[in-house]
């Protein structure tokens, strides 16, 4: 079985920052990968490279066994979705219209959104707790609601691989957990792959199967969370000492 995402000998630079050098890993269907690292180490750049939106300096990225060149932009958009860190609302738009943007790669050039697309968009809105807000103007949403709307648009896109840049930004604790549980459910039940940039180690421990740490200067560490997320590696990652506190249910990390 070919893996969902397959990365080989990847070199990624942005400006003078070396993000990754010789990075290689595979993500199988149903797996969740958390990317952790300090600000400015290139997590967003790496995500764009994994999404095929940015050329790598060297190495290859394959989605469902094929390179992005072979897939083409439209097919790639049917297979993988990206949650950007920022959402641009220069013009007025309703919540439902925004959620429907995810259907774009599934529609033909002259095709309009149909009943099925509307159903998927409304389901996606309901999944992120925005049901009933369909006709609201995007401008009137709070930061957290806007973030959940972007996640809804991604759900409506129905990709096989989700690439999420800080999906928990602006969300309250309740919705942080809800979004992570929603993604975990999709991975478990539908076999989608999840790659997400997170800043919360303890949430990463609970909701990711694997972790990729970006130390800067191209040094990376990838593997199962249990092996990769240790007090030693995390203290090195953030340049601040962390302590592991085990309790009956699992491991927790707190700043020392």
């Amino acid at each position, binding site marked *: 079985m070919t893996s969902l995402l397959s990365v080989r000998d990847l070199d990624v630079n942005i400006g003078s920052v070396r993000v990754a050098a010789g990075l290689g890993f595979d993500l199988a269907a149903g797996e969740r990968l958390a990317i952790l690292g300090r600000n400015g180490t290139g997590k967003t750049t790496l995500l764009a490279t994994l999404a095929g939106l940015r050329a790598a300096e060297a190495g290859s990225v394959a989605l469902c066994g094929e390179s992005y060149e072979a897939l083409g932009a439209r097919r790639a958009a049917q297979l993988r979705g990206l949650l950007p860190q920022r959402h641009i609302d220069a013009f007025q*738009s309703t919540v439902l219209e925004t959620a429907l943007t995810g259907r774009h790669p599934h529609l033909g050039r002259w095709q309009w959104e149909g009943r099925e697309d509307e159903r998927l968009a409304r389901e996606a809105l309901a999944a992120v707790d925005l049901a009933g807000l369909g006709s609201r103007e995007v401008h009137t949403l709070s930061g957290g609601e806007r973030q959940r709307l972007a996640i809804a648009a991604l759900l409506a896109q129905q990709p096989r691989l989700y690439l999420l840049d800080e999906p928990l930004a602006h969300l309250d604790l309740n919705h942080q957990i809800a979004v992570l549980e929603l993604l975990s459910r999709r991975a478990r039940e539908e076999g989608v792959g999840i790659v997400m940039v997170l800043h919360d180690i303890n949430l990463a421990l609970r909701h990711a199967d694997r972790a990729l740490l970006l130390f800067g200067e191209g040094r990376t560490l990838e593997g199962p969370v249990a092996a990769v997320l240790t007090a030693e590696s995390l203290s090195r990652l953030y340049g601040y000492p962390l302590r592991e506190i085990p309790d009956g249910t699992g491991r927790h990390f707190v700043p020392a």
Partner: protein
Amino acid sequence: MPTRRRALLVILLLALVGLASLVVALAAGSLPVSAGDLGAALLGDRSTVAAEVVRELRLPRALAAFACGGLLALAGALMQVLLRNPLADPYVLGISGGASVGALCAMLFGLPLLLVNGGAFAGALAATLLVFGLARGDGSWTQTRLLLTGVIVAAGCGAAVALILSVAPENQLRGMLFWLMGDLSHAVTFWPALALLALGLAAALPFSRDLNLLARGDLTARTLGVPVARLRGGVYVLAALATATAVTTTGSVGFVGLIVPHLVRLAIGNDQRVLLPAAALAGGALLTLADTLARTVVAPQQLPVGVLTALIGVPAFLYLLTRSPRGGAS
């Protein structure tokens, strides 16, 4: 929920408004022609005075107004998406500035009308290429860079226009000022503008859902499979051609390209699939009516149509700008 049915309804309605504006333009004037006589004048005997006035004078002028209004509104809507800035208009990138310099230079040397139009078109294209080339200087192409380059080129053109006006002989000044304000009495031909309006809409409509995504940011659009670089190039070329053609035909008519996309957007939302054709029709209707007013209000004296669109446009725009944003719970 955007539906094709609603889009067709809106477009049909605006097509009727456009048609009505053309009927008014053909009927009104120093020789009033009733709606009944209009059919006879258009289709029947060519030899009557009414037929001559309607066919030779009013029809070409009305169609030129309609086509140019449509082109300016289309170009404005495209520029607003391209620059992701609701305040953009067809002239923001210096296209009308370049056209003004070209046209006024031709007038200064006493060249015939056809060459004045040629000068305007050449000036518009030169400004377009200059802005495009400079903004692409480092290979990237951000909205801010494009906008700043355009504004600076437009400012340079404004200075050149002032220079030409200050050295021009007294007897040419009036013609120059009318050209600068937009004036349809010198419209030589309407065919290029009308053809470009039809072709431009036909070229833009298949990509209008892509444009919806482009308005939401490059990254979002690219993620969803939109070929952003090519699309932006195409939009730039189309908007520049539309503006250059409109300015060549009628001079720099203001505000149509800024106001009309906004009015349409407020009424029906920002779905480019409806917005582009609706703005083109509404722009055409507005300029046709404004031009009819321009030649009838103080007849036999003619006002520059740009004055009327601005007089209508400025209060409308200020109203839109200060109006509280559409909120609303569902």
